[in-house]
């Protein structure tokens, strides 16, 4: 690890994991934290708790804004543990000079997204700092949810499970990158930013036994599959052509030399379900997004590894993304 913090250490990939385990896990070590789930399950499995900070730039993007993201992000982490989001906190750090109208508009999106989740903000904090101390506005939310289905864990995936993805991948990462200064691409692509609780609720109501769920945020599908392979000590074998990618995301990837599988999502999740439940799960998912797909099986071929199979008979390892996301243009 380097002596100073680099942007790469916040990428959701390898350097990020290294920083977390060497600094935070070492200091805060306890049984619940060690499970490394999207949300911590506490109070003998009855409650789930999660926290997340939001620093996205630009603040407003196709398909959402930092406010919508701040509610979706934390509620989705709860939903991924089979919990119904109930109570949130909201902490805001703004730089002086930030426009009130923008703040109002951000808070409005928070409100409407909270309604979709049936959750409320019950505590908050506001700080204003000198211009330049933060980039316009940063938001932290912490949430508590009531667990509806117990036993969901990324540590229990086995060869009886199949891996599904809830929709096409990479839309958030691609949309944000396209809007960046110095890149400037015009596209109709919208971020996938969306609350996932209603989808999860539908899965549970339909009696599906969910082994694990995770929303594929920073580091994308590649990071989730690698985390799962390691946590459950299994090999995940993916059929590459089954992974749904929409044409705009593909276009942005072609232009900048990215791979959709490593791009961030904010309303796309991966799930492991028992083989017998797979078809029902797929039917439920497709009511929300028609391009949900079964993408992988679980084996013991190379434990702790993810293998991508091509449709022309070759295979390769899929690694956890590393480094800052940079266009490969020269």
């Amino acid at each position: 690890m380097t002596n100073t913090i680099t942007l790469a250490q916040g990428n959701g990939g390898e350097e990020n994991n290294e920083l977390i385990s060497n600094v935070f896990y070492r200091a805060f070590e306890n049984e619940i934290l060690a499970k490394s789930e999207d949300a911590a399950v506490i109070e003998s499995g009855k409650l789930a708790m999660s926290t997340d900070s939001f620093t996205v730039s630009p603040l407003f993007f196709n398909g959402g804004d930092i406010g919508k993201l701040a509610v979706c992000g934390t509620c989705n982490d709860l939903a991924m543990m089979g919990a119904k989001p109930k109570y949130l906190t909201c902490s805001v750090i703004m730089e002086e000079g930030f426009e009130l109208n923008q703040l109002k508009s951000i808070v409005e999106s928070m409100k409407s997204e909270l309604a979709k989740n049936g959750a409320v903000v019950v505590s908050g904090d506001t700080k204003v700092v000198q211009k330049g101390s933060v980039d316009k506005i940063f938001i932290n939310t912490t949430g508590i949810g009531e667990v509806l289905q117990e036993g969901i864990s990324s540590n229990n995936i086995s060869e009886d499970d199949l891996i599904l993805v809830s929709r096409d991948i990479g839309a958030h990462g691609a949309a944000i990158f396209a809007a960046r200064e110095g890149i400037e691409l015009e596209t109709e692509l919208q971020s996938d930013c969306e609350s996932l609780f209603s989808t999860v609720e539908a899965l549970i109501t339909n009696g599906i036994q969910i082994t694990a769920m995770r929303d594929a945020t920073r580091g994308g599908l590649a990071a989730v599959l690698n985390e799962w392979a390691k946590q459950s000590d299994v090999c995940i074998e993916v059929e590459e052509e089954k992974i749904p990618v929409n044409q705009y995301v593909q276009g942005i990837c072609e232009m900048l030399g990215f791979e959709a599988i490593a791009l961030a999502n904010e309303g796309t999740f991966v799930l492991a379900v028992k083989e017998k439940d797979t078809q029902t799960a797929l039917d439920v998912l497709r009511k929300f997004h028609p391009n949900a797909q079964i993408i992988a099986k679980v084996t013991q071929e190379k434990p702790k590894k993810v293998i991508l199979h091509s449709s022309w008979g070759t295979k390769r390892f899929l690694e956890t993304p590393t480094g800052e996301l940079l266009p490969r243009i020269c």
Partner: protein
Amino acid sequence: MCLSIPSKVVQIDEQTNIATVDTMGVQREASLDLMAEGDVAIGDYVLIHIGFIMNKIDEEDALASLETYKEILTAMDEEERQNAILEADRCEGS
């Protein structure tokens, strides 16, 4: 090295010598500074590298390549069919 990708020209601004190109529904501006005047027209397929059009893609040559691939596939299919027939004959004979 040198990631260059095929795109379609959808607009040309002669004043600034800049074209708008489309790649699977994603659009961006690309400079025409490396091309001869009047060489690029709307609807052309071009190769884009770091914000510049570096040349046109020859449609005839591209189609000729695709035709070659089709022929190879047909020949392979035929060969496989013949092999399958031979295989079947052998089974019957034994």
